[in-house]
């Protein structure tokens, strides 16, 4: 990934001193930003291992010096909750389809917006992007009524459909922007060779869009995984057995009456999976996927 910078011939150009200074600058800026971004989370992480009384008596950095007085009690408290394992599995059942469906549906639409001609294409696309601004809260009541009349309140299906609807404008917007920037010649030569749009889509458009699909998958996964409101409303009281992890953890905070000492532990437990997803998808952010496909 980073070899482009280190393997290119350097001797040809003068000014090694300026370049060395530039590299120090790059490292310094990155180091400062990383510290600033990490510090708040580290504070909560340290506090999640401290005694509840200590958290409100002194700053989190006191937990890093003797006497440490650290404890796993906060984590034990969260993990001992009723139904936390079920809630975790429910979260997976909700999040996986609610990530896959919008990405596929958006990819179909983005492909049509990018590489098919039809009347009103730009206008329709702008309307789709404009829907990004619709506040989620205004849709809750009409959709709840709709689900009730269909009898799917409380089922995973209701949440899958709702998250797909809410996630689509952004997904279409991002994918259309990326697919629209792919080289035209690739699709034209495929069409001349007799490839149908379905073949072009699965063999060319999707593989070439892998970096942006990975980005989109991460975001959609995160939004759904961390969502509280949609699950609470559409699953909510109708079927508590299907509620996800976020609802379980929100109840923990409420039942303790502002018990945020356990919330630190809860926050880190629920962050774990999204971070694993991010790390595993990160390898798709590599240079030259588009370039390689064009040459091949």
């Amino acid at each position, binding site marked *: *990934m*980073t070899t*482009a*910078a280190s393997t*290119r011939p350097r001797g040809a150009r003068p000014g090694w001193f300026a370049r060395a200074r530039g590299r120090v600058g*790059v490292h310094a*800026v*990155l180091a400062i*930003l*990383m510290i600033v971004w990490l*510090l*708040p*989370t580290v*504070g909560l992480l340290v506090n999640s291992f401290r005694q509840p009384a200590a958290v409100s008596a002194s*700053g*989190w950095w006191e937990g890093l010096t003797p006497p440490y007085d650290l404890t796993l009690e906060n984590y034990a408290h969260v993990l001992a909750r009723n139904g936390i394992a079920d809630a975790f599995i429910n979260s997976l*059942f909700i999040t*996986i*389809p609610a990530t896959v*469906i919008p990405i596929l*549906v958006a990819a*179909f*639409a983005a492909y*049509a*917006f990018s590489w*098919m*001609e039809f009347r009103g294409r*730009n206008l329709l696309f*702008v309307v789709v*992007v404009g*829907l*990004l*601004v*619709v*506040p989620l*809260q*205004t849709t809750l009541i*009409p959709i709840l009524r*709709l689900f009730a009349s269909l009898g799917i309140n409380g089922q995973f299906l209701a949440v899958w459909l709702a998250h*797909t*609807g809410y996630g689509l*404008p952004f997904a279409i917007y991002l994918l259309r*922007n*990326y697919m*629209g*920037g792919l080289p035209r010649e690739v699709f034209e030569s495929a069409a001349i060779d007799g490839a149908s749009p*379905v073949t072009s889509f699965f063999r060319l458009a999707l593989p070439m869009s892998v*970096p942006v699909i990975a980005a989109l998958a991460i975001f959609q996964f995160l939004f759904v995984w*961390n969502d*509280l409101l949609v699950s609470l409303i559409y699953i909510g009281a109708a079927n508590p057995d299907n509620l996800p992890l976020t609802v379980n953890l929100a109840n923990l*905070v409420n039942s303790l009456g502002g018990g*945020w000492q356990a*919330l630190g532990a809860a926050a880190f437990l629920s*962050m774990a999976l999204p971070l694993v997803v*991010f790390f595993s998808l990160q390898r798709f952010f*590599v*240079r*030259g*996927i588009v*370039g390689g496909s064009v040459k091949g």
Partner: protein
Amino acid sequence: MDDRLITAIVVVVGVPGVLVGYIWGTEQVLRLFGGRMQPRIRPWLWLLPALGFLGVFLVYPTIGTIIRSLQDKAGTEFVGLANYAWFFSNDNALSALKNNVLWVVFLTVFTVGIGLLISVLVDRVRYESVAKSVIFVPLAVSMVAAGVIWKFMYEYRPPGEVQIGTLNAALGAVGTGPVAFLQAQDFSMNTFALIAVMTWMWTGFAMVIISAALKAINPELLEAARMDGANEWQVFRGIIFPLLVPTLAVVSTTIVITALKAFDVVYTMTSGNLETDVIANLMIKQMFSFGDFGRASAIAVVLLLAIVPIMLFNIRQFRSQEAVR
């Protein structure tokens, strides 16, 4: 456990299978039509699932909201534009509107600016994935947890007491008195404190998208320019930046809309008190505290109208993209 197994199979195999099957099925259906009709019908078949979802989950409730915004509190009588007249003559609403302008301008500049800076710098170092992960972490934090994290950052105790907030302890270490970040209204400092939280969360978002676009730039293009003696700044200005413009437009548009809809941070940290209110929080208050769905709907429509200029900018952007490709 049996039910769970069935659900798991539906989740992993069934759902993608249905969607791929649909798009394969469209070609079979299209064979029934003549060769001239096919290109006309095909785009609509590809768009159909998306338009169906958008129609049901966003367009239909929005039309309901527009109609509701013209009705009174109980929803029994039409009152014309009275709800809008209330919004534009109410001091709280205008103050919220002013705060949203700050949100839109500064959240966008900070997240896109820092996101671009990180994407470009990180492309040249060996610890790229570590650095990106660090910036990304806040995005994986839920809103409630972010609120708790930043309460520890901004925590204020009167001078003389032990400061347990990170920022005030740091100020104390350099000999300055503590600052009540979330209470101070001079220069809208508390609003900026909230914008900082959101910047912390959303810079990772800007970074991931910009970085993905950066990776799509053909490396040979950059090498060629460097071989011709261009310095790094010239490579950035002349090649990288112009190629990133469409992506920056997408990211900026998304962040502007996020800023317009800013709600969770304000709700969890200040509840909109002390001049920190924003439009979306005002709407929630009208809905759930005052039960006035007429006014709440009018506020939602104001949000919708606020993006018209951004949409016009986007149309121009698509036109120019269309022209070059």
